[in-house]
């Protein structure tokens, strides 16, 4: 069975995603023209977005990656979020742009911001491809760039997963409800 068979409908095609990313990259290139910003991405969901966004930006940048445990992870047994891959670069005095695949509750982004702010960057903003504002709990996030607003449905593809699957779909779609509850 093809991976795409589990998709109820496509929300954003590959072409739509790339168009939007080019527009976001152009804006970022203008806004950070006088600096060399550091793009920080969170593994694994933002992998493809980071790759395409960073290549569409026309000014000098550096990139780095973080990884944290997620609530519900089998590995998250301590009861608290844990940094499992820290940045390689120091960010003190740097202009940092946190690159996210999706922000919904805002809990993960809020944790990352607190972690990064403690290191005294010159500035710290968020660039997210998808914004699921309907489910926001932490609504004070500095989201400077957003690609698309999405409804409160289970979306996968272009880095977003369900049980680690569907990340490699080139588009973003809504997963069929009957697939979501399957334990596989």
């Amino acid at each position: 069975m093809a991976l795409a068979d589990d998709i109820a409908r496509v929300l954003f095609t590959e072409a739509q995603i790339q168009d939007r990313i080019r527009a976001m990259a152009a804006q970022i290139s203008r806004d950070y023209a006088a600096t060399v910003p550091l793009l920080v991405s969170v593994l694994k969901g933002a992998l493809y977005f980071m790759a395409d966004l960073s290549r569409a930006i026309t000014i000098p940048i550096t990139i780095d990656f973080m990884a944290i445990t997620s609530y519900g992870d089998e590995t998250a047994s301590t009861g608290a979020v844990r940094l499992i891959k820290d940045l390689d670069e120091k960010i003190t005095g740097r202009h940092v742009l946190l690159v996210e695949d999706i922000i919904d509750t805002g809990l993960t982004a809020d944790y990352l911001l607190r972690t990064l702010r403690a290191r005294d960057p010159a500035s710290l903003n968020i660039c997210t491809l998808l914004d699921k504002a309907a489910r926001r709990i932490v609504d004070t996030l500095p989201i400077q760039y957003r690609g698309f607003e999405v409804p409160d449905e289970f979306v996968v593809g272009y880095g977003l997963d369900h049980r680690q699957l569907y990340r490699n779909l080139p588009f973003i779609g809504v997963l069929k409800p009957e697939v979501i509850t399957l334990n596989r």
Partner: protein
Amino acid sequence: MHHLRDVGILDANIRPPLGAASPDDKTGCGPPITARDEEGRTHSVADRKDQGDAATTRPRFAHESEAEFARLLDFYGIRWEYEPRSFPLQRDNQGRVVESFNPDFYLPEIDLYIELTTLKQSLVTKKNRKLRRLRELYPNIRVKIFYGRDYRSLLLKYGLAKAAARTPSV
């Protein structure tokens, strides 16, 4: 732009001074009832050992969904208080409170109340009416309500299918 109501979460988006009577209170309901001590501090969960699990200082949650939500907030380091305030909605002729609204959680760092409504549809209608009344009386209080469907999808996001299955999808 999707409006919050369209996707199931009602954002009362109200923000009055905490612990003070609303200047818009025209109904005589008076100020919210807060669990404050003589020094004016809001009681936190840690102060409620007698109400819950003394070993962990957690309150006795009314529903497992609330306990799960508290664990989620704990995981990401978000401070919370459980049912710290009661907002009177209606009083009788003697001034006694006959109807009130007690949001499940208060997140002090973002000044937001959260109500989890994992009830049957018939009870959700009543809850919605109370929420509308709350918005009228306390227009500056920020409240978000998570309906069963919203909460269920939140649990599914974290791969908690079993917990989600226990939550009505209204």
